[in-house]
């Protein structure tokens, strides 16, 4: 890695690429993301949005998330937290934090993963049988 001729895209340029993709929106529109503050030169704090999958208890709801990409991103995973209240096996019930030990994309992070990967995988979690059985908080409540 170090000093290698093959290009390792540094954090900031990687996040600028992610921002470009986020501004265009994912192809199917089921997840979206962008900078929390559009003038944050450090590219640290992001907002994410997940549209609840049809045919699940999450259907028709919009979930807002706060994502923090630290200095070590994408070597280290982002910190991800639900702002909208939700019951999911991988989400801390009192803080809304997505727990890396029960959510593989964060627990076994790879630098190929992106903010979009995390949001899309969280949306898949909503389709899992164990999560579909959980009673959900009232719509519009926040952690």
């Amino acid at each position, binding site marked *: *890695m*170090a*000093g*290698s*001729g*093959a*290009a*390792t*895209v*540094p954090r*900031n*340029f990687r996040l*600028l690429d992610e*921002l470009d993709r986020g501004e265009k929106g994912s192809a199917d529109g089921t997840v979206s993301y962008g*900078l929390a503050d*559009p*003038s*944050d*030169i450090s*590219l640290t704090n992001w907002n994410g949005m997940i549209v609840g999958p049809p045919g699940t208890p999450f259907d028709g709801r919009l979930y807002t998330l706060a994502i923090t990409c630290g200095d070590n991103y994408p070597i280290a995973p982002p910190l991800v937290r639900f702002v909208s209240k939700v019951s999911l096996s991988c989400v801390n019930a009192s803080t809304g934090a997505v727990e890396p030990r029960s959510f593989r994309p964060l627990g076994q992070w790879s630098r190929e993963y992106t903010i979009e990967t995390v949001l899309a995988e969280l949306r898949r979690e909503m389709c899992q049988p164990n999560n579909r059985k959980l009673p959900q908080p009232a719509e519009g409540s926040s952690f």
Partner: protein
Amino acid sequence: MAELPKRIVKETQRLMSEPAPGISASPHEDNLRYFDVMIQGPVGSPYEGGCFKLELFLPDQYPMEAPKVRFLTRIYHPNVDKLGRICLDVLKDKWSPALQIRTVLLSLQALLSAPNPDDPLAEDVAKAWRENEAAAMATAREWTQKYAQ
């Protein structure tokens, strides 16, 4: 471990041994395609007296593809947006493999001397520039004092 292309090695050596006036660029030790750049605000421009930090990255396809460059110091300029992204032809459609890191940095220095509000990236700044150039340049000077020291 793939070797750093000779072209990049040569460009880096020359940047370090014969830096262009008012410009410095040095690679990160752990990523030789990633440079810390410093450009001094050109004399006679509203950026005079300022020291602007930028970052530059040479993608895999360099020199077939242009370097990626961004301001890290906040700057009030019609061709630079709030995130430091730059609108400059040589970084986009006018890029040619005959150009170098040095030419890109000299073009950026020239862009500081000659903002181009007719090809804007920061629409609000460009509008201010077109409507009242003197006032816009005063704001640019203020920002230089505030952020680029």
